[in-house]
């Protein structure tokens, strides 16, 4: 075989049909026997095509090549490819090292920008650097994870916000009720305060009366009071009213009596405080007592009232007792009846 054949030159001349039949047969025999030779011939074909595309063939060679070209669709396709490739590489910068591929890709066709989707540039997918791509991939993954976490957190906050809003609405709905209750409570407090003040005044008056009664008693004992008449009369009253005059508790108040003490026996001591009103037979209030406390005896609980004797004229009387709850609400407790007789 022709071992000293100039590969490029002979192969190109073979392809153009410029070799003798014998020279051509020699090349062909070699390319059938040796795959490497066949590849060399294909490379020579590429170089011939590139020379044609770059208009570097002589007029004669150009004509011969176009003759081949007109009878081979495969060759035509390769020339079309070479045109695109030539356009792509012709825009690579001239100076220095070969330009980065990413730059080259963006200017494949002269005067036209490589029309890639914007997101490929954004994501760095056009980069030829594996590290750069890896970094972008990691960044994208990080964004994804962070986005998912933020979304979860946002959902959580949204649920919490909705819950708080619902609570606020509920509170808003309850507000009038609470305000009403608060006003009631305040009113109750004011009432209790006023009651307390009144009781203190009453107690002061009572004390004053008691002091007067004591003084009067002393005077009567010393002067006008007959011997054997007590200064203060005491009467124990069980609970309940009776119309039977005979069964009524009668209190004879002799002249010179300064005060009458009524001991009201309770059915049960159920309240922290009590109040009592003494009324005559006509229902007129004779005396009112507030802030009373029950006193425990061995048998029962008793509320004690002391009235000036002069406030009691002869006649029937009732005592109405009400229990006061811890919130100041008055509830009926017991009624008592007695008769005053004056000799």
């Amino acid at each position: 075989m022709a071992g000293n054949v100039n590969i490029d030159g002979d192969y190109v001349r073979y392809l153009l049909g410029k070799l003798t039949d014998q020279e051509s047969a020699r090349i062909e025999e070699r390319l059938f026997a040796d795959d490497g030779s066949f590849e060399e011939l294909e490379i020579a074909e590429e170089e011939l095509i590139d020379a044609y595309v770059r208009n570097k063939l002589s007029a004669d060679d150009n004509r011969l090549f176009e003759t081949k070209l007109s009878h081979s669709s495969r060759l035509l396709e390769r020339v079309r490819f070479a045109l695109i490739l030539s356009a792509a590489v012709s825009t690579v910068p001239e100076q220095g090292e070969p330009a980065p591929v990413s730059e080259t890709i963006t200017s494949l066709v002269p005067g036209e920008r490589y029309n890639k989707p914007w997101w490929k540039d954004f994501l760095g997918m056009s980069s030829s650097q594996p590290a750069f791509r890896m970094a972008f991939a990691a960044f994208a993954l990080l964004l994804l994870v962070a986005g998912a976490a933020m979304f979860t957190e946002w959902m959580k906050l949204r649920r919490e916000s909705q819950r708080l809003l619902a609570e606020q609405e509920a509170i808003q709905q309850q507000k009038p009720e609470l305000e009403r209750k608060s006003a009631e409570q305040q009113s109750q407090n004011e009432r209790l305060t006023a009651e307390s003040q009144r009781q203190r005044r009453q107690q002061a008056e009572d004390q004053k009366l008691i002091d007067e009664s004591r003084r009067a008693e002393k005077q009567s004992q010393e002067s006008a009071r007959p011997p054997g008449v007590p200064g203060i009369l005491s009467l124990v009253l069980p609970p309940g009213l009776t119309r039977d005059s005979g069964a009524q508790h009668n209190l004879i108040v002799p002249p010179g009596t300064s005060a009458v003490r009524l001991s009201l026996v309770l059915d049960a001591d159920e309240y922290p405080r009590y109040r009592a009103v003494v009324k005559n037979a006509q229902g007129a209030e004779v005396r009112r007592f507030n802030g009373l406390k029950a006193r425990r005896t061995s048998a029962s609980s008793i509320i004690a009232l002391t009235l000036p004797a002069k406030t009691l004229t002869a006649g029937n009387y009732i005592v109405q007792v009400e229990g006061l709850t811890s919130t100041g609400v008055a509830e009926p407790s017991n009624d008592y009846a007695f008769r005053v007789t004056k000799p």
Partner: protein
Amino acid sequence: MEVNSTQNLLLDYNPPLPSLTAKAKAVSFLAEENLQHNGNDQKEPTDATGSRRERVKWSLTQQAFDKLLACFSPDRDEAARQYEFTRVKLLRFFEWRGICSPDKRVDETLDRVARRIDEGQQIDNLPPYIYKVAYLVFLEALKEPKHTADLETDPPSTNALVFEEGEQERRRRCFDRCLEELAADSRKLILDYYQEERRAKIELRKLLADRLGVPLNALRIRAHRIRARLEQCIEKCISKFDTQPA
């Protein structure tokens, strides 16, 4: 010599190839071959003169094809690979020789080789034998009037190189896509390798070869293989474009 059959004119068909004598013998061989029979022969109709001349045409059987593959390699896969590569070589041969319908000539060549093997001919070195048969088919093709008419009357035309509207854009997109599919170093190599217009070609390629640490010819082969992959990719890409509805 690879051929053992004394009936075959290829016995006299020694290198150097081809000679006028060889051409004459080859034509004679082809004429003789058309008169032979075997179990797969088909009778052809009478000729134009009305005389009933029986011409038979051999057709490829599975058995003959299997025998052909076995001659390439005992390993079936390797045999298939070599068969396909031989087809490509044959195709290029007929193309480079300027023969019309190269596909048909390739089939004709391989059928004849398969027939000889099926008939019991022992072939020691298959590729050169195939080339010799291909050369005979080439000579036969040269005799066909249509072939010479094509070459002599059809004016060379490069109109086909003018891209249709939108085609250039499709090709450019395919090129970009396929270029991106290449590995980064392959992409860089092919773009750098073909920058021969504006740089001193030899110097540039030497620089590339030095950078890669390979001889210049290895660089040349490497660039060719990358280019071949790129071309195949673009071919597939364009065919996809073509099959897509407008």
